[in-house]
């Protein structure tokens, strides 16, 4: 089959690789009909993620048709059209039983590596390094999906591939970012980052009752999307002092809830600690880690800061004094996607959310390398790339 392989820094290639097989009896094989490049894939593309091997198949946002099932699979069957959540979750462990699926204790065969880095491991993730399991991803013609009775959601007729695809990651991730804010009537919610996840966080904040949503970014086309499709108030941080503008907009109080949909550039861990740490340290000099500090300092007294942007390791100059003295709440997490798929599917069916609004580029799987380059370099106003194998 054809698959998008990570060959090294800024080097992805669509190559011929063997077809996937059933490895566990709870597996299914999915023939991919649509897949997408995620902002977090760019961390891999840029070479910031350790424990990648040349030849790893990328992709954790995908959907398609079930073509084979393991012996123990009961709920899904051949021919079903399914969308697959990016965290791999067993459904049986302590975390899964408490619906914290991205913290599954049984789905990461390389949990030891993640433990060394994070203290405790998280779930396995498709196409996202060996630290998170060494699972082949879904930017391919076919993909093996473990725990088929726990993760994949069967898509009903009347819902298109493009409407359903983002239930795999970015729509639930944005929604959870807003949900963690415990939004109350009258709230102003500020969202840093108007990439696809930020856009969905803004949309969700309105759905959950926010009175006003503010979008902070530096790309005019992204701010325009936030303003036109979601109704957010845009702030371009290259043109304005964000802290001042936020104070001004809220009568000096600050936004009630702040969402960091940017994160740090890199996850780190691996054999070459020094090398990766140096990269992360150098990245700390870019604008990106400033978001968390800025969000904390901007937030109203007693407010909530919700972190859905990806952080990998350690950060410097964390304003703990601001958090403690001003009674702030910080919530964070990789999305527990399984929780949100069905309710968000219903919102899509009711027309409350149109996930396709973020799609700017549709390409054939064979053009994956070009898709990565465009998304990474923000060429041609690129917001979201959808790839189709056929």
């Amino acid at each position, binding site marked *: 089959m054809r698959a998008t392989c990570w060959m090294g820094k800024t080097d992805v290639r669509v190559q011929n690789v063997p077809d996937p*097989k059933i490895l566990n009896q709870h597996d299914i094989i999915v023939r991919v009909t649509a897949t997408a490049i995620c902002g977090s894939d760019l961390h891999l593309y840029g070479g910031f993620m350790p424990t990648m091997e040349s030849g790893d198949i990328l992709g954790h946002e995908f959907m398609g048709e079930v073509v084979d099932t393991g012996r123990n699979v009961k709920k899904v069957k051949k021919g079903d059209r399914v969308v697959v959540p990016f965290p791999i979750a067993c459904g049986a462990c302590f975390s899964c039983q408490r619906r914290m699926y991205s913290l599954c204790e049984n789905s990461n065969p390389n949990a030891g590596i993640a433990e060394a880095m994070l203290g405790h491991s998280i779930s396995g993730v498709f196409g996202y390094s060996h630290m998170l399991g060494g699972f082949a991803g879904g930017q391919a013609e076919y993909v093996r999906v473990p725990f088929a009775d726990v993760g994949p959601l069967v898509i009903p007729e009347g819902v298109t591939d493009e409407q359903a695809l983002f239930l795999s990651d970015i729509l639930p991730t944005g929604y959870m970012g807003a949900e963690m804010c415990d939004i109350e009537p009258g709230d102003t919610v500020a969202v840093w980052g108007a990439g696809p996840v930020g856009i969905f966080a803004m949309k969700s904040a309105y759905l959950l009752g926010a009175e006003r949503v503010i979008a902070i970014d530096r790309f005019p086309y992204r701010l325009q999307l936030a303003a036109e499709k979601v109704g957010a108030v845009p702030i371009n941080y290259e043109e304005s002092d964000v802290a001042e503008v936020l104070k001004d907009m809220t009568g000096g109080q600050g936004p009630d809830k702040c969402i960091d949909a940017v994160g740090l550039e890199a996850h780190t861990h691996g054999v070459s600690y020094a090398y990766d740490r140096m990269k992360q340290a150098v990245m700390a000099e870019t604008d990106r880690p400033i978001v968390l500090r800025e969000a904390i300092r901007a937030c109203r007294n007693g407010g909530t800061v919700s972190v859905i942007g990806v952080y990998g390791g350690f950060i410097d100059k964390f304003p703990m004094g601001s958090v403690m003295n001003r009674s702030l709440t910080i919530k964070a997490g990789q999305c527990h996607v399984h929780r949100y798929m069905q309710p968000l599917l219903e919102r899509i069916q009711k027309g409350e959310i149109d996930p396709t609004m973020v799609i700017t580029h549709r390409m054939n799987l064979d053009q994956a390398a070009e898709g990565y380059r465009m998304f990474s370099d923000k060429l041609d106003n690129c917001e979201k790339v959808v790839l189709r194998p056929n």
Partner: protein
Amino acid sequence: MTATAPASLQTGQRSQGKQTQRSTLAKGLGWFSIGLGVAEVITPGVVSKLIGVKNDAKTRKVLRGYGMRELAAGFGILTHSRPSGWVWSRVAGDVVDLASLATAMRTPANDKSRLAAATVAVAGITALDVVCGQRLSSQTPTESGTSSTQDNNTKVIRSIIVNSSPEAAYSFWHNFENLPQFMTYLESVKSTDTIRSHWVAKGPLGITTEWDAEVVRDEPNRLIAWKSLEGAPLDLAGSVQFEPSPGGRGTVIRVHMDFAAEGGALKSMAGKILGTDLGMRIQHDLRNFKQILELGEVTQSDASIHSGMHPAQPAA
């Protein structure tokens, strides 16, 4: 190596206070390394000014290199259960730093008083590193830790919570022929009579090691302890305890392993096969055990079905 598991647990508890002091010092040094490393890598110019060395391209390049060395040592110390090697690498680095400062003293353009202050500071840190290295190298067993004493005795304690009853966990483990399903270094275990069994372990390059073991304690649904018999290529004692978990979360499985690898070349090799990161191996095996009890099989990925690193793509 004669201690049975419960005895080694007691030893661990007694020595824990001292142990904590040692690892606190090591952690402090680890974070110090990372702090200094980041400063040297990002702002070598500022560091050169601080220590009184001329701020030119060559100095900045050297300082960046030193920064990477600090980062490696820092991460090594913070992420390894036995950081003594990394602490000694700091001592080696300190010697390089002192030599560099001495060389810098001879260059007229440099600020002598700042260099002298930096030398005193580095000498102080070197002394601290040596103390820490010595303490860690002579460390004694700890609870939930791995330790090697000078006689090559390794003791490891690891635990996990499994969502099952103590009865189910005990009975699966008690059938020793099940062990290779979750102990990755075992090829097979055959019961030879009610208390004795024959174990075959696979090592790197296809080398196998075999030994006989017998059960020395067996308390149904609570504890199983075993040890290798005379004539085995290694002295190994293990035990596993099964306790109901607080909060009704299932069963806490706690494994104690003691093994000694002193003796002839054969024993030494057997020790090498089992001794490399024994703690990580046991934790990995415990996760496999949990998966078998909670899911019925061990979760595999496209990479994990291969031994060693393999790209995350399906096998041919």
